[in-house]
């Protein structure tokens, strides 16, 4: 197996996620796209972790980092969905382009 297989897969998922973040209007879907991005990063971390683990058996940093990212992602989704709910309650819609009070 090549290391690149995983890295390229991660890159593809990342870019799809970026597209989703930019192109979707629905708040929940934007959050899902962010999850895609985070997963891509995780695949990267685990792939590199496995790669280094072959040389240094005590080194599992990649996995540890991936776990941390999962935990952070969980926190992010929690807060993000709470925000979406709040927006929904206030405006009966979760279209995030309606929320533009910072307009110049």
């Amino acid at each position, binding site marked *: 197996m090549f290391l690149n297989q995983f890295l390229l897969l991660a890159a593809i*998922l990342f870019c799809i996620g970026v597209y989703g973040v930019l192109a979707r209007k629905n708040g929940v879907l934007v959050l899902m796209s962010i999850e895609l991005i985070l997963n891509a990063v995780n695949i990267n971390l685990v792939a590199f972790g496995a790669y280094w683990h072959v040389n240094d058996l005590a080194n599992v940093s990649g996995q540890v980092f991936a776990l941390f990212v999962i935990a952070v992602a969980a926190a992010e989704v929690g807060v993000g*969905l709470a925000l979406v709910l*709040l927006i929904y309650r206030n405006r009966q819609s979760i279209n995030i382009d309606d929320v533009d009070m910072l307009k110049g």
Partner: protein
Amino acid sequence: MLALLVAQNIAFYIIAALMVVGAIRVVTTKNVMHAALWLVLVLSGAAAQYILLAAEFVAITQVLVYLGAIIVLFLFGIMLTRAKTGNDDDLDNKKSAKFIGAGIGIALLGLMGYSLIDGFGDTEFGDLMVQRTAEVSDSIFSTYLLPFEVLSVLLLAALIGAIVIARRD
């Protein structure tokens, strides 16, 4: 050994293809519920990839946390915001925004693809050793103890924050 490697490769490509298709459907489908279900496919694919990478613990955590918790959260989010059942045409931004997004995504992909192929051209994995959970736990609770503690505080803060933001008052 070789046969095993081939089998691994085949598995990888099948799963990768499913994941890419799933991911594309997540960002293109017109049904919010379907998007969540396609996301399930991508996330479980990622778990399978972790197993291929001999990272069992992360794979299990992925299943438990992402599939078990985060997806459920998403489903709740979808239900609580009374998303339309069936197709909804109002999920995407304007065409121009979609084009810009696609352009940026493709540019990013080209750039990353180029640098990855340039940088890791034919780097191969050696013989993958299973990264045992014991090693992971040793690492978390010695080298990464402080980040771990900080992370737990972060989770607590997020918990309180989510409650404060979402409650009715």
